[in-house]
């Protein structure tokens, strides 16, 4: 990782007041993205991945929530910004690719209108005609044949793969420094998912954007990311370079996640993880994975981060 992070999430806490009590959703999440780096955030549903992403995008705040910590984008703390300031940042310096391409595009505007709007948001001096020309060019650039027809279409007239391609184009058209991608392609066929990830890689490389990839699919992590954060119940439990994480996973949760993946080598059925993600209003004290952990012991309280190898950090009393 380069010395100076482009995006740094520091000690992020999210608390939501609910009928049942206060839910402590994020419990001190810290992560860093170097310029142009592809980083994955992986974990089961309900562990706080998307909450982290939405906070980083300034899309998660309402009366019953409290957010503490810092989200630093090139030296600016995004958490304190108002909606007016956000408008200059979102879509220009940091943008997002959402999971379901059918739902993320507006059904009552053509794809061309939506792309042109994104372009003019990034560069307010652009005329509508210029923006439309640039939109067509951007689509040709991502190998969309017949770009004129596609631009005149509404999202529901296009395939999921094509919509996903348009969303990615839209997120990158203003050459942002950071792209947050929440499960891109996971709603699509595996063949289309593969193409989607290849396109993301090529475009972000070209623009020099860093990517924070949110996913539950470890296979996708392995093909796409250079570095990985493993998240469990609102806490980062392990951090490593991708190759190292898959070769020598150290946290029991990471090991359990890997064992739950069915293998192409046909080793029989995968191993389930017993239990479930804990209740956030009353989480277990100390290590939140302890109730499901096969190696749990009496001193499993509040484990600190250990760094058994440079760049490989793990939050477990076992240390390995």
């Amino acid at each position: 990782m380069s010395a100076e992070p482009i995006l740094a999430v520091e000690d992020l806490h999210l608390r939501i007041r609910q009928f049942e009590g206060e839910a402590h959703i994020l419990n001190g999440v810290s992560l860093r993205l170097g310029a142009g780096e592809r980083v994955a955030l992986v974990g089961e549903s309900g562990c706080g991945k998307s909450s982290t992403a939405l906070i980083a995008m300034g899309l998660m705040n309402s009366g019953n929530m409290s957010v503490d910590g810092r989200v630093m984008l090139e030296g600016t703390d995004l958490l304190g910004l108002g909606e007016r300031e956000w408008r200059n940042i979102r879509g220009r310096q940091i943008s997002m690719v959402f999971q379901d391409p059918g739902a993320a595009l507006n059904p009552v505007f053509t794809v061309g209108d939506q792309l042109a709007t994104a372009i003019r948001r990034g560069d307010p001096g652009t005329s509508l005609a210029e923006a439309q020309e640039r939109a067509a060019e951007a689509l040709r650039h991502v190998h969309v044949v017949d770009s004129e027809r596609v631009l005149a279409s509404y999202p529901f007239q296009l395939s999921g793969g094509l919509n996903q391609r348009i969303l990615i184009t839209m997120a990158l058209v203003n050459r942002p420094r950071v792209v947050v991608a929440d499960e891109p392609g996971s709603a699509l066929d595996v063949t289309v998912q593969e193409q989607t990830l290849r396109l993301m890689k090529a475009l972000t490389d070209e623009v020099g954007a860093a990517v924070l990839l949110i996913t539950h699919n470890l296979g996708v992590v392995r093909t796409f990311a250079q570095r990985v954060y493993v998240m469990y119940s609102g806490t980062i439990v392990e951090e490593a370079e991708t190759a190292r994480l898959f070769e020598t996973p150290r946290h029991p949760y990471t090991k359990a996640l890997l064992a739950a993946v069915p293998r192409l080598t046909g080793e029989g059925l995968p191993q389930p993880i017993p239990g479930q993600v804990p209740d956030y209003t009353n989480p277990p004290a100390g290590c939140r994975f302890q109730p499901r952990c096969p190696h749990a012991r009496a001193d499993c309280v509040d484990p600190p981060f250990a760094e058994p190898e440079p760049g490989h950090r793990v939050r477990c009393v076992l240390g390995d």
Partner: protein
Amino acid sequence: MAEPAVSAGKNPVLIRIEDLRRDFTVGSRTVSALAGVSLDIRRGQTVAVVGESGSGKTTLGNQILGIDQPTSGRILFEGREITATRDTDMRRRIQVVQQSPYTTLNPKRSLRQILDLPIAIHSNRSRRERRDRVAELLEIVGVPADFMERHPYMLSGGQRQRVALARALAPEPDVIVLDEPTSSLDVSVQARILQMLVDLQSQYQLTYLFITHDLSVVRNIADEVVVLYRGYVVERGATTELFSNPQHRYNAMLLSSIPVVSEPEEALKPSWDWDGDVLGIEPSVGAACPFLPRCPHAVALCDQGVPPLVAATPTHLHACRNPRGPGAACRE
């Protein structure tokens, strides 16, 4: 269509599908969701049907369930034709588990009501006996029996899928059509459901038609695989052979797109020229190999009609005019 038989396993054939066709009219065009599909499903086996969306997987499942009628072709159950009509007992013997457990359970009914209906229809049990059977079914799928009066919204995704499975088991079927049963679940939950499916299969001698696009799951659960592309069977046979020695180029493309988590798995994936694929191409209409527009390995013969299934081995058929060949190493 005459084609070589696949003799995978000695179990008797339970369901035979002969040249099944289902055409839909879309505007002025006719689209064949199934364009002449033939296959045998043997008792006690798991047959996986794989392919991209729009390949006809679910349409095939619907034909077997009797939800939809084919345009032509026949479906035989233990030699009896069930294509057009089937009696209550026949319907009892084939059940279904659908993809999303969030939309397939009636939100206004309790688990007891949901599970009571199939028991009431397919047996003469008294109210009290039915209640005991509901409790028993919940125990079988690992949901506490005292959840009986709860409603689906109070359950997790994994628990809902267990209830959907209990509903399919309720009338004591022979066959269960599993339509993407784990694709909306986390891997940790998926692993538990798969384990349960395997246990139930051996306990109740169930036959599964497993519809999915997840080939890693197929590798570990299916005895036989059928690869569909635009309504055509392009490859089918014993699971180990289809994975270790894929013949049809489409099957190779599917295998190479699986995101895997280890080096040994990576080595099993055939190579594929992803940059050679083009988007936005219209489907060809019956005059050529359906995969031709996307295939970087096409040869001159490929537009000479739809290729028939030919045998690579006695337990492995494919419909490719330029197959990867008998001894093709996985990394070309």
